[in-house]
């Protein structure tokens, strides 16, 4: 049995159990919800995840306490 036949057989089985959703239509305008979300969570481009700040803090601490590592860091940049 080749791949195409394998797929066809499973496809038939799946379609007997799970209806395609291609006819599901959006029944309302979502713009009011979009506006609310934008007000609650402004999508600021400058937002930096907390772990980026944590990484920057660790790097800063390493540079302050081990200044000898600066040339090695510059070498690897």
């Amino acid at each position, binding site marked *: *049995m080749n*791949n195409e036949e*394998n*797929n066809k*057989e*499973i*496809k038939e*089985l*799946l*379609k*007997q*159990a*799970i*209806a*395609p*959703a*291609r*006819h*599901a*239509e*959006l029944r309302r*305008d*979502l*713009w009011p*919800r*979009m506006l609310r*979300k*934008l007000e609650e*969570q402004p*999508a*600021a*481009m400058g*937002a930096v995840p907390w772990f980026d700040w944590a990484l920057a803090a660790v790097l800063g601490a390493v540079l302050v306490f081990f200044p000898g590592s600066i040339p090695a860091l510059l070498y690897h940049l």
Partner: protein
Amino acid sequence: MELLERFAAGDLEAFEALFRQHQKEVYAWIVRIVRDTGIAEDLTVETFWRIHKYRARFDPNGNFRAWARRIATNAAFDHLRKARRETELPEDLAGPGAADPAVRRETREHIKQAFFHLPPRYRLVATLALIEEEPYNKIAEAVGISAGLVKMRVYRAVRILRKQLNSMGVEAGAR
């Protein structure tokens, strides 16, 4: 200035115009993946929130529809990963192509169970390729992988499904 340029520059009216133009299409794509109308609405809003957030990365000469579909696919995939541990199966999306009533209820439940417990990256491509019958290149573009990799994931999904179904006593072919 063109609509897409205004959107990329942060114009809210341009964003609203794009939202209204594309919300139905984005929703329709997401609902095919997550198979739950309420969750698809939430994820449509989430998708456009991400679109708005990353607007500066969008090239106004590029294809907004394809970009939006890619972001929608990522949002839906994130949902599949988060929801994987939940045991409840998605709702039935009854429509003109509704499931075959002649197939025994128990068999249908086994098939659903096996399908909705596929690893998310396989379930994503298998849903689009096997149930929704979307072409491999469209899936590849939306997921951000090659068509060859889509084919490979579908093949693996089929293998996992067959194994699962056979272990449940559902006859699903030789291999």
